């Protein structure tokens, strides 16, 4: 190999590195965008926009806007001035098609799985009642609307499941 060939080869390598540096800057911009989205909560798991609250009558439902596949998610149901001592909650089958129901605190006094979903019955002593339900999405899913029924109240929420 002649010296001139070697120099030319090295120059080409330097030029190639120069073009890679441009791609690197683009990647860093991508990193910054991902971080901003994550901090704001658009990738799920905490952040200002991570959760949304739906209200209907005396019932309030706090749910994640964005869920993650194979990560436990919490749905919080707050019922104020509950009339009867028994509360009936229906978790829709459309939600159970993409997520596994893990647990509920407090535990329901009775539960029944049917075609329309999972029906849970809770006994409570106080007028203000909080139910924390945990689900774990098993597949990624496009944004879809799910309707949770609490007694006569229908609470619709939209969620996206990221892979």
């Amino acid at each position, binding site marked *: 190999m002649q010296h001139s060939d070697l120099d030319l080869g090295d120059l080409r390598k330097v030029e190639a590195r120069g073009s890679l540096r441009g791609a690197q800057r683009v990647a860093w911009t991508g990193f910054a965008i991902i971080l901003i989205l994550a901090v*704001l909560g658009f990738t*799920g798991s*905490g952040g200002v926009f991570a959760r949304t609250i739906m209200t209907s009558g005396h019932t309030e439902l706090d749910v994640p806007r964005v869920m*993650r*596949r*194979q990560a436990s998610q919490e749905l919080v149901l707050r019922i104020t001035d509950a009339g009867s001592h028994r509360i009936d909650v229906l978790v829709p089958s459309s939600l159970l098609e993409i997520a596994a129901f893990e647990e509920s605190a407090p535990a329901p006094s009775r539960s029944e799985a049917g075609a329309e979903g999972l029906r849970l019955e809770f006994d409570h002593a106080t007028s203000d009642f909080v139910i924390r339900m945990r689900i774990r999405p098993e597949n990624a899913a496009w944004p879809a609307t799910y309707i949770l029924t609490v007694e006569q109240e229908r609470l619709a929420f939209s969620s996206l499941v*990221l892979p």
Partner: protein
Amino acid sequence: MDSVVRGTVIYFLVLVILRATGRRSAGEMKTFDLVLLLIVAETTQQALLGDDFSITNALVLLVTLFSIDILLSFTKRWFPVFEELIDGRPTVIIRDGHLDERAMRRARIDREDLLVAARQAGAPNLTTVRHAVLEINGKISIVKRD
């Protein structure tokens, strides 16, 4: 957001612990250093991932860790004081053939470590070494006598 916070906290926690432990463990790796490294990797993995095994979590964590690394490299370039704080300064172990026992103790380097570095540099023993410096990357540089 949790992934970003977890990644940032763990990164700086490991950085502080590694810095406080000393340079030797990062450079001249022995069997017990390897065991420590494996345990640290396993422990931090639990703290980083928690119960979330999604690709999104992995992506956000990776981006967070690499972004901190990029930011730190720029910060070190802009503020040399910061570079010294994170990377430390090279430590002279042998100067003009004189062994600095105090520097060795501080850096937790024994004579065997020096001999290994000397042999790797082609010096048969320490009398043939003019200078030995523990570099900021944890390696020992050897300058032989003429």
